[in-house]
């Protein structure tokens, strides 16, 4: 009598990651374009030292407000600093602030949203009212208030943008978690005597990942815009740190008519990064949301 060993892989009929990626690209060309933009920006930010042709903070008085040329592809600013190099290093600032704020804000919102839904009752009601209060302020206004309390700088800008994102994620995640809370396997876990945190983290959180990922993707774009806005208002990162919003401030305004490239290229960088993230986020939503998947 022969014994057949059970091979679970042989029964796995799910398509591979590669084929799923290909299908995503085929079905979501705009999303793929967005993803490509995001990847380009990410690679640019990560390898800024290798890619930037000049030191982004070095003044060059011999090349002040130079128009785009072979030496300086995107021109120079009023201090003679190479704009391409500053935009490349600015991608790093944007990514650090955008990704940190989105993931910390989103993750905190995820846990709080699911916990609020699972616990319910008075605690849920109190948490929701607190979220209501925080959400009553537009993101940029709340971020402005937080920066004015904690001060400027990259760390404080991340905190300032993270805090307003928490309730936004928590609210969406909670509504998904409320449905999951009633499904039989959560009842079963509760009946088995699992702790509330184990049920939340092991059984509920994985099942709200789809809306969470969509939210986080959207948050990255919002955070980059918020960072640029704060820097433009002089409340974000400070000179001479290369940051896109900061590059639009001061000199860019003063030289708008005589050296417009100082304002145009950082503006284009912000636009492309937010466009890329939004296109990718939309495609991700279409892919992960079962109601939209087959449209």
């Amino acid at each position: 009598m022969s014994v057949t060993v059970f091979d679970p892989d042989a029964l796995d009929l799910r398509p591979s990651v590669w084929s799923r990626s290909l299908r995503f690209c085929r079905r979501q060309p705009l999303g793929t374009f967005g993803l490509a933009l995001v990847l380009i920006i990410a690679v640019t930010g990560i390898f800024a030292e290798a890619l930037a042709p000049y030191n982004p903070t070095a003044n060059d008085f011999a090349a002040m407000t130079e128009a785009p040329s072979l030496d300086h592809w995107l021109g120079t600013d009023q201090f003679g600093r190479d704009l391409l190099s500053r935009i490349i290093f600015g991608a790093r600032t944007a990514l650090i602030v955008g990704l940190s704020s989105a993931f910390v804000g989103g993750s905190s919102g995820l846990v709080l949203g699911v916990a609020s839904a699972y616990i319910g009752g008075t605690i849920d009601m109190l948490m929701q009212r607190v979220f209501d209060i925080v959400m009553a302020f537009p993101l940029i206004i709340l971020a402005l208030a937080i920066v004015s309390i904690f001060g400027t700088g990259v760390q404080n800008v991340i905190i300032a943008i993270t805090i307003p994102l928490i309730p936004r994620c928590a609210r969406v995640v909670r509504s998904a978690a409320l449905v999951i809370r009633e499904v039989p396997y959560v009842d079963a876990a509760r009946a088995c005597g699992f702790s509330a945190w184990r049920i939340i983290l092991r059984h509920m959180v994985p099942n709200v990942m789809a809306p969470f990922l969509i939210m986080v993707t959207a948050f990255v774009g919002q955070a980059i815009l918020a960072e640029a806005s704060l820097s433009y208002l002089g409340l974000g990162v400070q000179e001479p740190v290369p940051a896109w919003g900061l590059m639009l401030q001061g000199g860019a305004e003063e030289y708008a008519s005589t050296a417009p490239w100082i304002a145009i290229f950082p503006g284009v960088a912000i636009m492309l990064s937010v466009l890329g993230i939004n296109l990718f986020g939309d495609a991700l939503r279409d892919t992960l949301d079962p109601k939209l998947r087959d449209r």
Partner: protein
Amino acid sequence: MQAKKSLVTTLAAACFAVSIGHAAPAAETPKRGGTLTYMIPADAPPSLDGHREGTYATVHTVAPFYSVLMRVDPENPADTTRFVCDLCLEVPKPTDDGKTYTFKIRTGVKFQDGSPLTAADVAASWHEIIFPRKGVLSARANWYSMVDEVGAADATTVVFKLKFATPVFLPALADPYAFIYEQKILDADPHLYETHVMGSGPFRFVNYTIGQSIEGVRNPDYYHKGEPYLDGFKGIFAPKQSVRVDAIRSDRAAIEFRGLPPSARDELTKDLGDKITVQTSDWNCGNLITPNASRKPFDDVRVRRALLLAIDQWRGGPALSKIANVHTVGGIVFPGSPLAATKAELQQLAGFWPDIEKSRAEGLSFELLNRNVDQPYKFVGIWLVDEWSKIGVHATQKVVPTGPWFALMRAGDFDVVVEANCNSIVNPVLDTQKYLPHDVFVENYGYYKDPVEADLYEKMLREPDPTKLRTLMRAYEKQIIDVEAHEFPMLWWERIMVYQSYVKGWKIGPSHYINQDLADIWLDR
């Protein structure tokens, strides 16, 4: 004693040429009439009281309504040694070994309410400035530490008695904030001038809307014959530079009196050609970098000197002047003044050596506190961070609004700060008070002690001989910059005035505080 007296007299004669009254510009005949609209680069002045305030926002708002005892020559405000009478009849020669100044006051001058202006009003105003009563703030009382008493000898005579003879006294009297107020109002309520206007200047007050505008009309009783030329004026408050530049471009306003950056000058001249007139001047304002000597490692003179030596002002000045309103490399004294260091003298001081490579050493990390004002604070800050990076010093900027910037400096909560020393009348000795140790002059934020420096200052204050005074100034400057590196004077600012060409009769001076009564301005259209 006689020798001392003659020295004071000689200095006064040499430095402060005397003039009575003034004439209209010789080249063109002024036209009468019209209303001048100008921009005031501020939200609103903190108050309307010139004695109390130190901001140009107050001067640009109310100076046209007031008379002063003395002033810079409106025909040549660029001359740093020439002062003329406004209410006085003649700039007096001091008596009593240089310790008494007796001013004869004009008669027939009236306040807007019709009351006659007498020597009692002049003496009361100056008494309030020099010896403010309890609860009244006088922003420049410390300028007049040499004054023993001031009073009216009769209806047309004001006498200042000094504790010691000093050449800095007479220029200090030309302070553009030293408005002459009515004694009876001062006695009734010394705070009334904070919110009300009652003067005897070339214009009469019509209307003031906080944050919007100030309006005046010609004073028919004005005492300088034929002046003012304008029927009236309107000053519009606009803190944002782009608004002011657009207003001048579209001729909604003809001028602003503080000064614009080079980019605005280039933009307006490019757009409007000969419809725009440009006047420039060295500005009696300059940035200075102050390390906090109460914090390590800035308590070490070697660290302070290393930071100072890393900055190449000779190369940075001409380059920065293309983008920021800075221009002239100088020491602690206004470059146009007889007491200022020559280039050769400057190049003997640390931080001003001609060979920058010889100056630069190796480094450290710290935070540079700066004010959230583009021109020229942030421009200078960005340049400094780059200069220090060349010696391996990593400086990060902390840019904060004006309120927190002052608060952090006053609390000593900073490593190194970009600040400025801005003065009105060029009066070099008084202008360098800013460099005195904090325990002598509270608005010094270096938090160092230096009895040698304080002693040199006291000697300068009492030195009547211009040559000896100049020698003392060099020693004082060397002690601050070269020996102790307490503070690093940066580039002196450049005042760039860009305005509609039909505005005539106004001449630029080295300060945006002076020559603001508008009496000489006329409109050619």
